[in-house]
């Protein structure tokens, strides 16, 4: 009897004590998920997610605005804003890419053994945020990604000028970290096999890009940054390009987009005409003459010359379009994605020379840009080759003009031609910055090519006070309007 009493009392006391048991936090971890992770795996995921995402916004708006192409379901054709496109940009980058990066950057900061990785994560974070701010202008930046650490669930919007200032700081610090940890490999590196020196080149190239964005609002700063970037060492060949190699399990985002009812992606007459006139051999790579939609069993004809290429035109008198985007090269799951074309660095350098920011031969950089881009196309699916002879012929036919303004126009027109298909969003930013190529707005529209994307409707539901405050800087209405221009595009 006493024993039983004792054992029951013992049991009661044990149970009471175990009320505060230490194992509860561990027991509450999800047994089907990982609770500690190699930071490199998150960095890698962020890099993959930047180009695995649905590219519909890039085609629906940027390809339409830049008169690269035309498809029935692109609201950008008529310069009409839709929330579908607005929210896809926002969600594609804030979540899959920045979710990883905002978590992993603070984690990496403390890892002395992963300082190069830390720098790479910060560089890539700038890369993604720059896309967002160039689309939308003011965006959540300093408070974005602070939900877990600081319980910020309705992040405030930062002025784009401050964001750009921070980009510069981030890139400078990253370059410094990479210089000091040149021997450390970047963990989870999808681009360079962990090579810290190439990450430094990427950061410098981004610094050049950022600097050249400021030519309208702060030419002094533009000049300073261009000089600094060249001095730090920008990309010097196609081998320095950040290229994401996709595969069936992680397909190129264009594959999804081109198969998602976009098989009627016609090349625009503006682009086709420009390339036909210039005798551009890349037209065979960019497009093809198809008898009907690929999804409907369309097949590609093999025209011997580009005279048969008819791009999309709004004019009823023009011949019906027959030139669709080259599905073999761009519509495949395993087509690599060029996140930042080396050619663009050469064009930016050429322009910086023309503008007197730096010294050198603008023509050399102009030609290097064209050559590099034509050569880079062999990385695409099907490995289309532009021969050296074709390149030389093209360069001979398209020399850099004599006057500064004409040079800037020519360089940025080449920038435009080179930006097809992957970098249409960057080309749109470059067009807003320079005004080149000169595009005639589509007839029957508002007549004004949009220069800022409206905020997604979800922000008005979930972060209303902050988005409303930000919207005041853009005319107070969330649409394409005359005041809707980002800071560096004033």
């Amino acid at each position, binding site marked *: *009897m006493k024993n*039983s*009493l004792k*054992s*029951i*009392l013992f*049991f*009661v006391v044990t*149970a*009471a004590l*175990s*009320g*505060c*048991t230490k194992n*509860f*936090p*561990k*027991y*509450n*971890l*999800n*047994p*089907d*998920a*990982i*609770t500690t*992770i*190699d930071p490199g*795996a*998150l960095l*890698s*995921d962020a890099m*993959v997610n930047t180009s695995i995402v649905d590219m519909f916004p890039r085609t629906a708006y940027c390809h339409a605005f830049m008169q690269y192409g035309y498809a029935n379901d692109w609201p950008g054709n008529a310069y009409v804003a839709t929330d579908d496109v607005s929210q896809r940009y*926002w*969600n594609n980058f*804030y*979540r899959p890419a920045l*979710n990883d990066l*905002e*978590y992993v950057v603070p984690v990496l900061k403390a890892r002395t053994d992963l300082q190069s990785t830390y720098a790479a994560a910060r560089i890539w974070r700038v890369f993604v945020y720059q896309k967002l701010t160039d689309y939308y202008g003011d*965006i*959540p930046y300093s408070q*974005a*990604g602070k*939900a*877990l650490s600081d*319980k*910020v*669930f*309705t*992040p405030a919007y930062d002025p784009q000028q401050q964001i750009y200032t921070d980009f510069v700081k981030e890139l400078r610090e990253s370059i410094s970290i990479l210089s000091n940890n040149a021997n450390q490999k970047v963990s989870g590196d*999808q681009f360079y096999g962990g090579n810290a020196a190439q990450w430094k080149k990427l950061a410098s190239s981004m610094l050049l890009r950022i600097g050249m964005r400021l030519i309208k609002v702060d030419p002094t700063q533009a000049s300073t940054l261009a000089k600094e970037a060249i001095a730090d060492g920008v990309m010097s060949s196609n081998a320095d390009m950040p290229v994401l*190699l996709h*595969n069936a*399990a*992680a397909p190129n985002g264009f594959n999804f987009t081109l198969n998602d009812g976009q098989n009627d992606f016609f090349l625009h007459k503006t682009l086709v005409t420009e390339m036909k006139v210039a005798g551009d051999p890349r037209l065979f790579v960019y497009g093809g003459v198809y008898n009907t939609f690929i999804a409907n069993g369309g097949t590609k004809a093999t025209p011997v010359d580009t005279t048969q290429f008819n791009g999309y035109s709004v004019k009823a008198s023009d011949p019906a379009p027959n030139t669709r985007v080259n599905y073999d090269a761009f519509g495949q799951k395993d087509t690599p994605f060029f996140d930042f074309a080396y050619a663009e660095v050469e064009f930016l350098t050429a322009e910086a020379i023309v503008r007197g920011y730096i010294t050198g031969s603008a023509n050399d950089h102009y030609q290097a840009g064209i050559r590099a881009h034509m050569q880079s196309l062999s990385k695409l699916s099907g490995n289309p080759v532009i021969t050296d002879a074709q390149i030389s012929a093209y360069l001979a036919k398209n020399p850099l003009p004599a006057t500064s303004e004409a040079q800037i126009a020519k360089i940025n027109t080449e920038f435009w031609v080179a930006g097809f298909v992957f970098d249409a969003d960057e080309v749109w930013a470059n067009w807003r910055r320079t005004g080149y190529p000169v595009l005639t707005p589509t007839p029957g529209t508002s007549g004004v090519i949009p220069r800022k994307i409206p905020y997604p409707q*979800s*922000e008005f*539901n*979930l972060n209303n006070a902050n988005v409303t405050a930000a919207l005041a800087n853009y005319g107070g209405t969330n649409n394409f309007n005359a005041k809707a221009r980002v800071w560096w595009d004033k």
Partner: protein
Amino acid sequence: MKLNAFSTAIYKPWLPKKILLVMKLTTLFMVIAFMQCSASAFSQKINLDVTNVPLKQVLKEINKQNGYLFFYDTKDVRNKNITIKVKDASVDEALNACLKNLPLTYKIVNNTVFLQEKDNAVTSVVPLNIKGKVVDEKGAPLPGASIKLKGTTLGVTADANGAFSINVPDDKSILIVSFVGFTPKEVAVANNTFLTVSLSESGKLSEVVVTALGIKKAEKQLGYSISQVGGEEVSLTREPTFINALEGKVAGLVVQSPPNGPGGSSRVILRGNSSFSGSNQPLYVVDGVPINSSTRENSDDGGKVYGGSDPGDGLSSINPDDIESISVLKGASAAALYGGGAQAGVILITTKKGKKGQGLGISFNSNTVLEKMVPYDDLQTEYGRGYLGRPYTAADYSDPIFYGQLADNSGDAPGWSWGGKLDGRPFIDIDGKTKPYVSQSAAKNFSRFFKTGVTTTNSLAFTKGTENGSYRVSLSQTQDNLPTPGEKYERYNAVIRATQDYGSRLHTDFKIDLSRTLRKNAPLLRGDGRGSFGLAYPRIASSTDITLLDDKTPDGKYLSTYNANPYVQIEQVTNNQTQNRILSSGNITYDITSHLHANLVAGYDYINTPALFVVRPNNVINTNGVYRTTTIEQQKSDVRAMLSYDHKFSDLTVNAFAGAELQNSQQYSLDLYAEGLADPNLLNFSNASNVHPPTESHTPRYKTNSVFADVQFGYKEYLFLELTGRNDWYSALASTRPNFKPNLFYPSANLSFVFTDALKLDQSVLSFGKIRASIGQTGSNPTPQLTDLTFTLKPPVNGITNAEITGATVPPPSLKPETTTETELGTELKFFQNRISVDFAYYYKKSDNFLLQSTISNATTYNSLYFNAGSMYNRGVELAISGSPVKSQNFTWNVGFNAARNKNMVTALDPAIGANGISHYYNIKSKVGYPLGSIFGTTFLKNAQGQDVYIPVNSRYGTSDASQPNDAVIKDVNNNESYLGSPNPNWAGGITNTFNYKNFSFSFLIDGQFGGQIYEAGARWTNYFGNSQASLVGRDGNYIPNGVINTGTASAPVYVKNTLPFSPYIQYNDGGNADKSADEAHVFSRTFVKFRQISLGYSLPQSLLNGSHIRSVTLSLIARNLFYIKKNLPTFDPEASDSIAQGYGYDSGALPTSRTFGFNLNVTF
């Protein structure tokens, strides 16, 4: 004279050394339970060799050696030490040696030794043998009644004829005669040698109620409302899930069983919804152990392709024949001792056990139930297949507006009943043949499709009671062939329960319930048109024979590829689930003193549910075939230990207990899914062309540790105050991150005041009056595995490991359980010697800290967040009245009435949720200022003067064709979202009348719900297909509705009176578009009054059974769900729903209702 006695039994107490092990040793349960302690044989040879030991000890030793029982007065043997040495002695020799120097003598009667002081021995003590009989009030024998000698553990059991024989020490002895269900009686022997003891049944007044943690209390002690229901209420009605039988019987309890087939989940709501996100289902506690009753409903999974599966909530595994009683703890005060998890109330189930001292009993119950589907009674039968008011013509078959649907019987058009008057002229049916244009009414098509369901249940129970214990073994088997062809339900139960006393202080009670439940082709809760009859029937043209859908082309393809083809589901789809369950519990009580008791309860519930889903290749659904196997394994264990104490200090009584509880719950599931079956009959993943990676889950899992205490003070048996407290520590609230507080305290207090006793009122009119008041707090078990960030590995890219943050859900910064605080006031009154009793309760319960998953700005880089974000209240009244208007020798009439009103209101939602509220399911939302889960949607437009606004349309082509002049109107729609109603009834209740005449018993139950709305999507489709009565309004083109047309603009309207006829075809169908009608048109009142149940019973008179082994024979006829006395919802079932959770207000047009007719035979031996 005070007597003590002992037998061998009390010297072999069995005490486990590690009590904790008990719960793991399920098999040991049974071994222990059957350890019958029998007295050793009476041997005559006694060996003793002791020096200076207490006499008592020597007597025990003699008892041990030869089994003789001893009677003595404690004072006679106290402080008497002896020295004795005997070898192979007889009893007499041994006793004489023992007592030789003591002032004691002895006498032996039938192996019982009486010790007495020498002086009194001869004169006063004459051991007596008493014979007698125990009977009930009517004089019927009570076999198994217990007869005990007061002050001892000695006793005997009455035999099959109620007769007994017992030895007592003298004529001053007192016998205690008892029998379960009867009031025990003390009888003085005096100078009788034959006693007839008549016991009366325990009156209802002193009824003992099972309260929280299984504590039994007298009703008058309760400061809160509890409803107790006897097991016969659920065993007679034969609902496969016992809880469904309580519909309409308990005030404040609303039970709905969606048309998910037998074994499906039930919606059981006590006093309104109490949670946004968690379960609104009560906690079920069986024999003191909480069981797994999670619904696992999946009405809206990615598996919409399966039409919403419902693997059941596990309640149907319990055999109704095994239930002794059910206690419903409705309020927070009654349930506060269960803390977290008791937010939605608690249902305590006590199962049957053998009765001590009752001898052997056999009970056999056989039951047969027939089930008939009830055809939709109000679909139109005037117009047939076709459109534009005529049957389809051959030309229509090639008209491009039908996209070829008529030609290959796909899409909707083949089912439209927008044709001409059914006048017998020829028309082209879906098989392409020309037939007479006549109605194929619902009654015809139902009888073609459904058969008569037959359910048979056989239960056999053996009970045996001995003096020290009992056991009960029950076996039961249910076979249910449902009206839907191919649908089957089977259940097998084996229950073993054993109780045993080890001496007077240690009591054990062990149970194991093994069950196996098979559901074959269980219906789908909702659908995507995957062929459930409920979805299909309203979509078939009124002139089409349903069996045509089963027609096939010569190469075996279904002629009708229309996607809601019920024959495809019957023939090509297999949807089977098997549930194997072990439900076990053990209960050990040790009486430390007569006022202090220790109790250990342990339980283990194991459920294994394999499921199989197959769609064989066919030309209609999942064309290439699907093969899917799922296994869910659930485990739940519970160990509770407590000490209880009671004492009486003159006018004050104290009952207190305190204890601790450990709960652990785990789940494992494995889902394997493949598509493309090469051989339609080979069910193997090797036969599938596309095998998806397996999905494996080990969640949810959680532990809850608790301590609790309860004290109740009673003053003079009329004033009672009880205070309780429980503290729960949840693993689900713990985190490796800071700022998480894993525990919560749940207090309660209640007061009961029997004013009729306190004020000594005249009891001739008001026989009993009590008022009660309580306040208590309960909670909801928090969802586990939410508090930490986790990562999910993804396939490597370019050889580099990739991982992401799981679900992009940010874990909450802190987490609290949902809590509910409830105050309750009530009274209980009995009039005219308990002929009428009234129970009334008012409650107000406020629920806070709702755990919600909220969408957050993607700019946070996450997309959702779990947080505590809302509040609501329920308030209501409950009334139960019962009475016996007629009570005479041969005839009684009893009436039981109950009614309850509940009002629910969401009072707060975090601003982060937004003013738009939370969407639960289609049109079902929760918003501040409206009841939880209300219906929102579009309405028909009215102008400022309140007139209906119509828009002109072309009756042939709809509004889009501008080339045709407008010749008709339809109602215009206001697309702003409006509140359209709440799915919860305002009032619910029922009335039962029972008549007893001699051996006949007749009873019927009518129940109903008043108020509340339902979004009936089925009505939208009967309108769209032109099958509803509503679609007849205006068909002849002569109905010119009284309303206005806007000839101005939307911003500057100019209203003129409408002069055009109404076009139901455009309003509801519009050439294949169901969206011209407002949501408002499909929202109906849920009010109904149902003739729920009628039963007739007959017991064979005892006179016929005398002399046989049969104790009783009862025959019953029972019919359920007979008809609706009143119902406002056309065609469909107002009790149906797509979901038993928050989607409750929405019905896609579920299976029609059915009636059951049953025959029950109960024989006891």
